[in-house]
């Protein structure tokens, strides 16, 4: 089906119009063939009927002459030449008394016989005719009707004209009625499909238990709906597996770390305990990041999620500022003094911005200030005064496990991968540039998600 007929309704109606047209043509062709199969019999009958009509309207005048008072309807057949009909009324000698064309018009040169059916004598077979005797008053006459057979559509003309005039007009209201009924029938039949579509609209990765209702769905559409439901079941299963894996992995990794941590806290050797605690800290951090990466695989932003970027940044800074101060680095929040609302998930954005700020604090030089700038168009920039990021590394740093310096064991190179994933989930972009004064600027652009 081509693209002009997208809706089932227009398809049905257009197909039906085509069907009506085909049916009409079929009827006409059938009539033609039917009539064509017995031309002689039919022509004979048809011409005889015409002769009888003429006889009917012939009257003898007081002076003995004949008079023909054809009503307008049959007269038209002869006048218009429709069907190439002609008539002549002759006496026993073949003298023409009345004629459709001229009084001299003489059809049978050897005088009338009949009743008789004849064809034109020459090879061209240009006409057929009948000659019928009739008694009009006191006179014996022969009525001859001929039809020009060289004119195309001779028989059907008559039939079609008759059909269209008597029956044809009935077809118009019938077709209209059928088409209008189509409209309502299709709408009614497809109603359950519309309901199913509305249910499909409500599907959200957080509510994967939704299934399309198969109730009242037309049998033809049922396989589609069932296939969609099967697909949903598989997706739900996959999501559940992934989520359960994340939860199980978290439990299995964090509980032993807790035990380790408690045992270290109980150690008598304070110095050794301090070093070991730092190790557990690093391991916990990596485990946390791995779990976050796993969790983000199935993360989505719900339609109703909104986040104030300024507030999220402020909370990230509240969390990190004490650590930064201990490491003799400062943090400042600048930019829009008003809330900047975006469509976004607060915990996820918190995670992303936290990773950016943690990196900035880690890499900025001592006694410098990390600036977190929230721009009103929905962009968060984190500016530091560290070594910056070389052109070659600009893409690499967002890959999982990529680190510039593998000799440092702090961090697994997952932080920026988490940032990239959160950005992707929010349909934003994350870029890094170097400041003219040195240092890096990470720009998290969520302007596409800006609300209002």
């Amino acid at each position, binding site marked *: 089906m081509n693209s002009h007929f997208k809706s089932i309704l227009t398809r049905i109606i257009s197909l039906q119009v085509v069907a009506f047209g085909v049916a009409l043509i079929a009827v006409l062709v059938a009539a033609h063939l039917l009539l064509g199969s017995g031309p002689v019999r039919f022509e004979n009958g048809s011409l005889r009927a015409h002769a009888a009509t003429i006889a009917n309207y012939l009257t003898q005048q007081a002076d003995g002459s004949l008079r023909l008072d054809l009503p307008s309807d049959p007269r038209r057949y002869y006048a218009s030449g429709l069907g190439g009909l002609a008539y002549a009324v002759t006496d026993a000698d073949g003298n023409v008394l009345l004629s459709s064309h001229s009084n001299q018009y003489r059809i049978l040169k050897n005088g009338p016989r009949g009743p008789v059916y004849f064809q034109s004598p020459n090879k061209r077979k240009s006409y057929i005719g009948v000659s019928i005797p009739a008694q009009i008053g006191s006179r014996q006459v022969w009525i001859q009707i001929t039809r020009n057979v060289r004119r195309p559509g001779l028989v059907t003309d008559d039939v079609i004209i008759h059909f269209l005039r008597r029956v044809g007009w009935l077809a118009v209201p019938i077709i209209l009625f059928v088409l209008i009924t189509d409209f309502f029938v299709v709408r009614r039949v497809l109603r359950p499909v519309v309901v199913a579509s509305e249910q499909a609209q409500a599907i959200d990765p957080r509510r994967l238990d939704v299934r399309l209702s198969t109730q009242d769905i037309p049998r033809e559409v049922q396989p589609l709906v069932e296939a969609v439901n099967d697909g949903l079941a598989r997706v739900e299963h996959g999501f559940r597996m992934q989520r359960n894996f994340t939860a199980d992995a978290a439990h299995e990794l*964090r509980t032993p770390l807790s035990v380790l941590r408690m045992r270290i806290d109980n150690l008598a050797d304070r110095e050794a305990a301090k070093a070991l605690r730092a190790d557990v800290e690093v391991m916990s951090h990596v485990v946390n990041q791995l779990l976050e990466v796993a969790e983000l695989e199935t993360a989505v932003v719900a339609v109703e999620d909104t986040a104030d970027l300024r507030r999220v940044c402020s909370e990230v800074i509240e969390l990190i500022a004490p650590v930064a101060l201990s490491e003799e680095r400062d*943090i400042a929040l600048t930019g829009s003094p008003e809330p900047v609302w975006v469509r976004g998930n607060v915990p996820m954005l918190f995670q992303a911005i936290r990773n950016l700020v943690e990196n900035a604090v880690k890499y900025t030089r001592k006694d410098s200030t990390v600036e977190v700038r929230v721009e009103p168009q929905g962009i968060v920039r984190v500016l530091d005064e560290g070594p910056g990021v070389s052109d070659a590394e600009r893409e690499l740093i967002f890959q999982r496990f990529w680190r510039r310096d593998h000799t440092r064991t702090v961090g697994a190179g997952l932080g920026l991968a988490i940032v990239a994933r959160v950005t992707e989930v929010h349909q934003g972009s994350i870029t890094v540039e170097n400041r003219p004064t040195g240092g890096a600027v990470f720009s998290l652009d969520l302007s596409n998600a800006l609300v209002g």
Partner: protein
Amino acid sequence: MARLLVIEDSEELAGLLVEGLTRADFVADRVATMADARDVLSRNQYSVIILDLGLPDGDASVLLRSLRAHDDPTPILILTARGTIRDRVEGLSAGADDYLVKPFAFEALLARLRALLRRPGEFLGKPLSVGNVTFDTAARQAFVGGVPQVLSAREISVLEILIRRSGRVVQKGAVEDQLYGLSGDVRSNAVEVCIHRLRKHLADVGATANIHTIRGVGYLIRENEA
């Protein structure tokens, strides 16, 4: 002496917890499943419940919800292995009073427990301190190195709100609210002026704690690095 219930399925972790809590002068009982927890809770009264979310007989937030549904007011501290984005919010919305993500520092657990055990009024009257700065919340008097300080009412209340949350950031809005509470006349830079004076005062009298400004966010008081 406060009696605690530890609901934790890991044998080792539970053992270490009970051991540590006993050393810190608590009495701690331990169960490993929700079924056992329901059983002991029906017979005993506890001051705080320490609850691990992932238990062998299911998600312990079910237990949490049913306790809250029966108006059980016992403070509940959640220990969760799933410190993931989703679960963090879930625990608190299910009715927990606080939560700690594994692995946690035992000191942090003790601090949270003490906070939960403290009656709201108990806060008052306890001297707070950071470095050599102490603050008597009952008398509303600040000391530096034991020497009483003469401060304005505004300075006192700003110092109090900062020292109550020492080492953590206090939002500028919260400090402003504190000042508005004192008098209707607060100019836009009143907080800055007050902080500036307080900072100068502390430095002048040799305090070993300092007030830091986190630009665009708030303030924080902390002990100076050695």
